[in-house]
């Protein structure tokens, strides 16, 4: 028996509507296949990072501190 894909074309349509991203119907199934390959691993990583040992971990994201002199301070 075939298992249900993690993401199907209908899910993609909904997500694209929320993102206001126009998509041709033929692209929905291709995106569903791609996201079905990616998202289980992304969710597993999210679950790992939700463990208590990582509670204090901050994301590595760029927060630029401009040169104060350039800002005239």
């Amino acid at each position, binding site marked *: 028996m075939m298992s249900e894909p993690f993401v199907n074309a209908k899910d*993609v349509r909904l*997500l*694209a509507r929320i*993102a*206001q*991203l*126009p*998509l041709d119907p033929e*692209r929905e199934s*291709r*995106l569903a296949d*791609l*996201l079905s*390959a*990616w*998202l289980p*691993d*992304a*969710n*597993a*990583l*999210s679950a*790992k*990072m*939700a463990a208590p040992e*990582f509670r204090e*971990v*901050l*994301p*590595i*994201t*760029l927060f*630029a501190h*401009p*040169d104060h002199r*350039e800002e005239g301070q």
Partner: protein
Amino acid sequence: MSTADDNDVLNLSLAAASRAVAIGEISPVDLVAAALRRLDEVNGELCAYIDVYAEQALQVARASESLIAAGHRLGALHGVPISLKDNIAVENQVTTAGSRILRDWRPAQDATVTQRLRSTGAIIVGKTNMHEFAWGGTSDNPHYGAVRNPWDSSRFPGGSSGGSGVAVATRTCFGALGTDTGGSVRLPSAINGIVGLRPTYGRVSNAGVIPLAWSMDTVGPMARTVEDCAILLQAVAGHDSRDPASASAAVQDYTADLNRGVKGLRIGVIPDYFFAHVQPQVGIAVQQAISLLTDAGATVVEVASRHVEGNISAQLTIEAAEPSTYHHEWLRQRPADYGDDVRLLLEAGELLLATQYLQAQRYRAVLRAEFVDALKRVDLFICPTLPFTATPVGDVLVEIEAGAPEDMLSAIMQFTGVPSLTGLPALSVPCGFDDHGLPIGMQLIGRPFDESLLLQVGAAYQAMTSFHLRRPGV
């Protein structure tokens, strides 16, 4: 058509060509003319360049020749032909990033790295082909042609800086700049049999470079020898107020330690990750390289990693979400102007959750802490640059283990992801060939802002081997 004399000149390393120009032994005009003849000879088949600055390069070469004759040498790259990946801005020259969307874009200003190359006397001969917007590892470009591997033109050259890799391997220039987000300098370096360096994140300015993923993007040198990469890095490294992510850490002297050898150095390996899922010939070549380094006085330390699994997913999430943010408007207004593969990846990046992106960014902090801590016990890590050798152009699946085809994009990121996510520097060095005559590369990963040590080890390895001296038959 290039001549026998051209071959002699073009086989020189960048360092040797630079020295020859400095003492008046070779004219920059002869160097550029030879490079352009070679470029003309190979580019039709290999599609390595999008744009060639033949007239401008010769004009600059004549000025360069006059300066040398008058006793003025601008710097270490004076009179040396160099190529740039076409996502790096050159003032008033079309800079496409391998896309149709930017095919008419002429930047008003050079990228910082372009300025710095020019200020040390480099002569830019052209802009190299690439994976569209750097979002992919094959350089199979739908707008400017698929870049082809000079060791076997039916195979891919890696990417996204595939054109730069081919340009260097085929001796159409003495060095090139690529950009590396998830591996885009190191992959084409390994696959084309050359050396490529991903610097520490922030070491080299990204100002004037079309971004892929802001939190991972770097610009890196590609050349045939480690010494040449060191010279190129020296020219472009350093703080830049135009780039908010630019680091202010002091710039090392990258050529000072090239002859120090490897005696006493501790090489870290993670056997159950870095050698667990590789084509046999790739694994053997890298193990043999490590053995050679231990014969020369280094020691191997096995390291366990709790967190390296998961790095591919984190890369895919970040590399999908950040480009889709940058491309938001074009993806809605001009979707048909993208190649099919890049459009699909950009669309996918729109559909990820913010929490998945941020968890991936938190994971990076954990992975970085683990590697930085391990690098207190070892001096560097060594692993394959990628787990397989070049596959046929157009393939989207690869067999690392016989009978088990897998997704190319995930497979190609397997080992390059650790430096990309952690911001650590990494050097790819040629370390062998498979039974088809296709190059194999090993990756050296080091401490933040310690590119010198990687270059020292890479140079020691090249002094003991000759893989980097072979040239493709094309």
